[in-house]
Structure formats: C-alpha cells, structure tokens
C-alpha cells in the first residue's frame, strides 16, 4: 500500500473553496433551522403546536421569516449615531460566522489526489483564534446599544460588556485543563488526544466541562444569562431600535454563536468527530496519517475511507445538535438570573473554582507523570476519579444557597443581597439626564 499524502496543488485549492462554501452554507442552514427548532421545542415544552402553517409541519417557516425580514420597513432612529448604528450588526455577525472555521468536523477524506482534512483552516493557534474573535463580538452589541441613543439599548450594551468580560475569564480557565491534556491548542490535536486516551475529555475533566458549559451560556447571552436583552426589564436591550434585516443579523449572530459553542463543546469534551472504538482514529504525525501506536511505540497507519468520513460527520452533527437542543431546553426551563446574581456567579464562584480546578488537574497530571503512568486509559481513569470528586463537591457547594442568594429570598437581614451601590450626590451636574 502506498503512503497517504495530504492533498496539494490545484486540487487542494478546489477542496479548500469547496469546504469554505459547504461549511458556510451548512452554518446558515443550521442557524435558520435552529430558529425553527427553538419555536417548535418551546411549543412542545409549553404544550402548544408551534409554527405549523408554512409547509409541512411548518418546515418552511425560516424561509418565510427571512422574506418577511427583507420586506419589512427599515427604521433609523432620528437621534442615533448613524455610522455606528449601521456598523453594529455587521460587527456582531462577522466574528460569529468566522469562528467555526477552525473546528474539525469529520475524519480525513481520501481522494485520488490525496487526503483532504475535514477542517476549513487548521491554524496553529486553533482554540485561541476562537477565543480572540468571539471576544470581539461584544463590540457589535455594545456599539449598537450605545449608538441607538436609547436608554434601554444603552443599558443592554453596558450589561453585555460587563458580562462578557466577567465570563471570558472563567471560560479561558476552564479551557486550560483541556489544553494541558491535549498539549497543544489546535483542535485537531485535541480530538486526537481524546482518541489516544480512549476517553472523551468530558469524563477525565468533568468539572472543566461544567464550567465551560456555564461560561458558554453566559458568553452567548442565552437564558439564564440573557441580561443584555432581558425583555422584562429592557424592552429587548441592545437591539431595541433595530428592525428588518439589521435585527435579523443580530438573530443570526446569536444562533451562530450558539452553533460554534455547541461545536466546541462537542469537540473539546466529547471527542469531536470521534466515535467509540479505534476504527476511525486518524492524525497527521510526522507526515504520516496514523491511527495510533503499537506496544513498541511504532506508528500504526490509519486507513481513511469515505464511509468513515460520512459516519464521523454524522457523529459530529449529532453531538452538536444535542448541545443546540440543550441550549433551547435550558432557555424554556429556567428563569433569568438577576443582574447581581450573574456577577456573583461569575466572579465569586466560577473564577475561584476554575482556578482551583486548574491546580487540581495540573497536580494530578504531575503526580501521574512522576509515577510514570503513560498517557492512556489508566491516566484517564485516575483523572476521571479526581475530577468526579471535584464535581460532586462543586455541585453540592453551588446548590446550597451559600454564595448566591436565590431568587426566592430577595432580602434577608442577616445576609443582605449584595447589589452594586452608587453614591449619588443630589447636586452633582451631569447626572440629571442625557
């Protein structure tokens, strides 16, 4: 059997353009149908029918919504800062759509011209690229809130910036444990290390997964963390003044953020496109596509096939769709946090827990290294036990109304709710209105 080579030259260019188009189309389709799924699942949870008029079972509803948004009147508030008002939705949608590019979505596909990696851009900084770009997404929210010249929109923008900065820290720290096991920041390597260990990282790093899940909900502004658009307080927050396609762009941005976050959870903690068993393992190691190492440490060559690519693609899709479903499920199950609860959870629970967990994981890895336990099944088993203990302790601690007062106890004399207090001098100028 001749050696498998990565695709190169003109076919590589064709494959690249094909992948870009396919991933972009798939993203837009998934986003469109997630909006339908949101309405269908909410209807199901609330014992209603949901949209069922456009097409069979309402399946053409997203298309009708799209046409409606294009045909609606576009409003421009008279006092808005026109430039930033128009730029806001663009700044919001661009980072949301480009982040998916570094997520590997299936096993490498063999073609007559060489092996095609099923990832749009396998750049050396992988996950850091996602973090960097998604941290830019907040500018769209803040600037559209600010430029609308509307107090509700403005408050929404302020909340968005505070919330994003707070939870980014916990999100980054929860990733440190994954990167420590993976040894690199590229997502292909994260997938490969999970295949090699024989464990999906959700088990050896269970607490890391829970922290990531909570922070990802906060970063995507989804319930119970949708403070920037809390409709019972702020009309609809930062996009109050937007209509027509500009409003739709915020909508697309939110759902593609959800899609990226779901794909990330699947990749970082549930093996990405990996399916149980070693039959689909594949990784570029020193120019060879390998499936693992034998007992003597020699590489075993992988045997990619089109059906393996298809099956792993389906596996990745299923995992991602599950997390999208989880997003919707949670939204229609839990009530919204109060603003002070969001901040306390971020700074007093998530941040210290994430820091402590990084210490625990690195100490465990160090001890295992000193005991010369090689990276593999036993390694994963020990980490699973340690993380399991941490998770039980964390959930017990978090569930006992110790740090964050529940919504049912708004005020107690012996343990007052901590709200940010601003001392306002009655005579101070500039505070009377804008």
């Amino acid at each position, binding site marked *: 059997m001749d050696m498998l080579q990565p695709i190169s030259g003109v076919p590589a260019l064709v494959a690249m353009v094909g992948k870009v188009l396919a991933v972009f189309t798939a993203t837009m389709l998934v986003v469109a149908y997630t909006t339908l799924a949101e309405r269908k699942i909410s209807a199901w949870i609330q014992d209603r029918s949901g949209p069922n008029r456009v097409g069979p079972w309402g399946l053409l509803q997203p298309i009708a919504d799209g046409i409606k948004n294009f045909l609606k009147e576009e409003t421009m508030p008279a006092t808005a*800062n026109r*430039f*930033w008002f128009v730029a806001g939705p663009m700044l919001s949608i661009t980072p949301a759509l480009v982040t998916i590019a570094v997520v590997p979505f299936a096993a490498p596909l063999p073609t007559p011209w060489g092996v095609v990696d099923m990832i749009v851009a396998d*750049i*050396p*900084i992988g996950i*850091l*690229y996602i*973090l*960097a*770009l998604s*941290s*830019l997404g*907040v*500018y769209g929210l*803040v*600037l559209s809130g*600010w430029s609308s010249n509307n107090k509700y929109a*403005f408050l929404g*923008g*302020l909340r968005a*910036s*505070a919330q*994003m*900065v707070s939870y*980014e820290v916990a999100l980054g720290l929860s990733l440190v444990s994954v*990167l420590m096991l993976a*040894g*690199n*920041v*590229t997502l292909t*390597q994260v997938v490969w290390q999970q295949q090699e260990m024989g464990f999906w990282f959700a088990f050896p790093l269970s607490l890391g997964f829970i922290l990531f899940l909570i922070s990802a909900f906060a970063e995507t502004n989804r319930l119970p963390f949708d403070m920037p658009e809390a409709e019972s307080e702020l009309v609809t927050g930062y996009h109050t003044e937007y209509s027509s396609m500009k409003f739709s762009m915020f909508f697309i941005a939110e759902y593609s953020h959800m899609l990226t976050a779901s794909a990330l959870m699947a990749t970082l903690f549930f093996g990405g496109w990996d399916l149980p068993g070693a039959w689909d393992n594949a990784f570029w190691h020193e120019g060879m596509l390998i499936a693992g190492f034998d007992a003597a440490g020699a590489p075993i060559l992988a045997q990619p096939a089109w059906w393996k690519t298809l099956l792993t693609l389906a596996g990745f899709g299923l995992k991602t769709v599950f997390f999208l479903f989880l997003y919707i499920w949670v939204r229609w199950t839990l009530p919204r946090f109060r603003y002070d609860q969001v901040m306390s959870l971020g700074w007093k629970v998530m941040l210290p827990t994430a820091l402590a967990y990084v210490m625990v994981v690195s100490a465990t890895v160090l001890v295992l290294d000193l005991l010369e336990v090689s990276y593999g099944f036993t390694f994963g088993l020990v980490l699973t036990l340690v993380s399991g203990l941490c998770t039980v302790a964390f959930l017990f601690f978090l569930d006992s109304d110790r740090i964050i007062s529940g919504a049912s106890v708004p005020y107690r004399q012996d343990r007052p709710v901590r709200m940010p207090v601003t*001392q306002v001098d009655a005579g101070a100028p*500039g505070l009377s209105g*804008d």
Partner: protein
Amino acid sequence: MVETVLFWIFGAVALGSAFGVVMGGTLPGKGGSPVASLLFMVSTLASVAGIYVLLEAHFLAAIQVMVYAGAIMVLFLFVIMLLNLGHEYQRDMKGWMASLMLFLVSGALGGILAYRFAGPGGGAELDFLAEANTAAMDAALAEQGAVGVIAEPLYTTYVVPFELTGILLLVAIVGALALAKRRVA
C-alpha cells in the same frame, strides 16, 4: 510578495488608526468622541496583531486580540459609557505650548526608536529575521507548537522576571482598589 503587500496595508492602517486615536476625540459633535478614539485604538491593536501573524508569531497575535482588543478595550469602553464621557468634552491639552510639548515628546521617542533600530550598531534585535534563525524557528514551531515555543523560555529561562511582572500587576490592582475605596469613604 503577498506578505509585503499585507505588511504595508497593516502598517498603514496601524499608523492611520494611531493618528485617529489622537484626533478622534477632538471633534465633538462631528462624529468625534472618546468612543471613536477607542475604536481607532482597537483598529491599531488589530493591525499590529496582523503584523505579528506575518512574522509567524501566531500566539502573540491571538493574545494581542484576545487580551487587548477583546478584554481591556471592552473595559475602557465600559468605563467611557458608564461615566457618559464625551458630551461636554474639554481637551486636557490647551494652547500652543501643550501642542509643542506633545510634538517634542513624541518626536524624541520616535527618534530614539529609529536610532536604536536603524542607527550605527543598531538592528541586532532584528537578527531573528535572518534566514538561519527563521529555519530554526520553523523547526521549533513544528516540534512544540505555537504556544510551546513561547511557554518554554517563559517558564524556564525567564521565570523570575515573569513572576515579578505578575506581582507588579497585582500591586497595581491593589493600589487602584485602595485609591478607589478611599474616595467612597
């Protein structure tokens, strides 16, 4: 070729935006405000990150965008909006003396930098761009990955300065907190 063109684009955007940071706040009522200055600053930081990518310092570029553009500048924006700055805007610098001082200080700084890199005996810092060194760098990148190349020297050779920098930042945070607390009481 492509890299040269990209370098000039990023360089021009970085310098133009840096100019915008200074000028953006000076035209209140004509679209100028502290927010405009801040966004020019973000644009400068992003262009510099682009130059880092051209230098194959991917990790540095990602951290630049993530920390400076994505976190610190968002905090600046938060503060500007919270304090509602920019409506009754007053320049800190007034009169021709202030302008002259600004010009002299920035000119002197630019001169020092230019002398350091282009003057006699300068440019030793740019040795890492030489052919032999880039080849070694590529090998290290392939072996250790984009993060490992930076992490290894940072946590072995330079661990003491690194930790001291961390303590310095901690001191700055504690100092800021102490100052803020005193004002409330």
